[in-house]
């Protein structure tokens, strides 16, 4: 599989993304570039502006990356068809958002499935704490944490494993990367503790 190829096959792109590591982003970029003509299609078919369509398209490929990595996309349909379907749905969402002016509904904060694993009583306690927390301040502290710590926490938030973080950030082992990451999280918690 040659990354330098002008246009890779869908199979090559998916293999590259699933392989992870430092090459993953390059394959993700290839996927973005390969189907970016959908932006122009969206402008024509959905009467959205080009910037709106570009934003929808970026959201689409980001969702596609997740689906490829998590194997939710199993390759039963063509990648192009699957991508087009997501893109179309998101365009329709964007139109609804514009026409009903209910963007705040879509921006609502929602936690992932990990919260569901908690026992009911504990979940309600944690949910209450989260609801009371100042998200803006957490964003602010994360932004001010320092480049290396922030990159590490963002990679973790994006779903990269400690192995991959070690590889991309130059740590000798995943264990070292994990220790550093948890130290960074502690640092952030210290700054955030007073408002939680």
């Amino acid at each position, binding site marked *: 599989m040659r990354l330098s190829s002008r246009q890779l096959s869908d199979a090559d792109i998916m293999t590259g993304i699933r392989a992870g590591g430092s090459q993953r982003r390059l394959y993700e*970029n290839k996927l973005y570039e390969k189907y970016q003509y959908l932006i122009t299609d969206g402008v024509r078919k959905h009467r959205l502006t080009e910037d709106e369509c570009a934003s929808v398209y970026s959201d689409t490929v980001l969702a596609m990356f997740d689906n490829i990595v998590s194997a939710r996309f199993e390759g039963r349909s063509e990648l192009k068809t699957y991508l087009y379907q997501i893109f179309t749905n998101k365009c329709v969402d964007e139109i609804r958002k514009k026409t009903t002016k209910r963007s705040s509904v879509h921006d609502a904060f929602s936690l992932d499935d990990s919260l569901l694993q908690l026992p009911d009583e504990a979940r309600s306690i944690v949910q209450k704490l989260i609801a009371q927390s100042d998200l803006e301040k957490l964003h602010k502290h*994360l932004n001010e944490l320092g480049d290396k710590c922030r990159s590490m926490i963002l990679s973790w938030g*994006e779903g990269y494993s400690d192995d991959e973080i070690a590889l991309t950030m130059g740590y000798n082992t995943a264990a070292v990367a994990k220790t550093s990451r948890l130290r960074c999280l502690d640092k952030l*918690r210290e700054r955030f*503790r007073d408002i*939680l």
Partner: protein
Amino acid sequence: MNTDLETIENYVTGQLTPDERVRFEAALRTDPAVAEALAFYMLTKQVAGEQAREQRKAELDALRKPASMWSVPMRWAAAASITVLLGLGWYFLRPTNSPEMATRLADDYVAEHFMELPTTMDGGSSGSTTVDSLKTAVGLVNSGKLAEADALFLDILKRQPTNDRALKYAGIVSLRQGNYDQAITLFHRLSERTDLYSNPGLFYESLALLKRGLPMDKEQAKKLLDEVITRNLDGKAEAEKLIKSF
């Protein structure tokens, strides 16, 4: 209860033993510090994921190429349309009545009439120096030795500057060699001979002008061809064809 983030992470990722898990969940209900630590961990992961996503989105946006006016299918359609238009353009605008067409006809005439010269010489006594030289020069032309023939014709013309055959053949050799200036001069000199029963000088001069193709040459060639037709000179039939192609 330990509220270090490693324990929290081990709980969230299912790495605690069943006993540890039971103890952790019991502490979660009773120890606010544990609940706070877990809330922080989950919230931070979510916020980090959002920021990473925004950052990645910005990186992807930077890959965006300037918008093309048309999508891929539309570009194919446009390419097909252009091909059809070019085809139609060629059909309607092809050079059927253009100087280029006249030049092509001139080429055809040269190829048909100037590649081999007649070896029979009338109007001159065999054995004379000039006739012998002309025969030799024509032989050289017919054997493809154009430069030698050219030199010999010019030599004859030095001796007999108005020799019509020498002027005609020297002009033809010059034309075939691409020496159009000389060909025009020689054919013009031939055309000035008014004492000849048959004189293709003007027609040949027009051919040489068409071949040279300088800015005013085609106009000049057309005038000469008109004159050939009007005066009913040698080459009138061909001149009429050429005029139509202008």
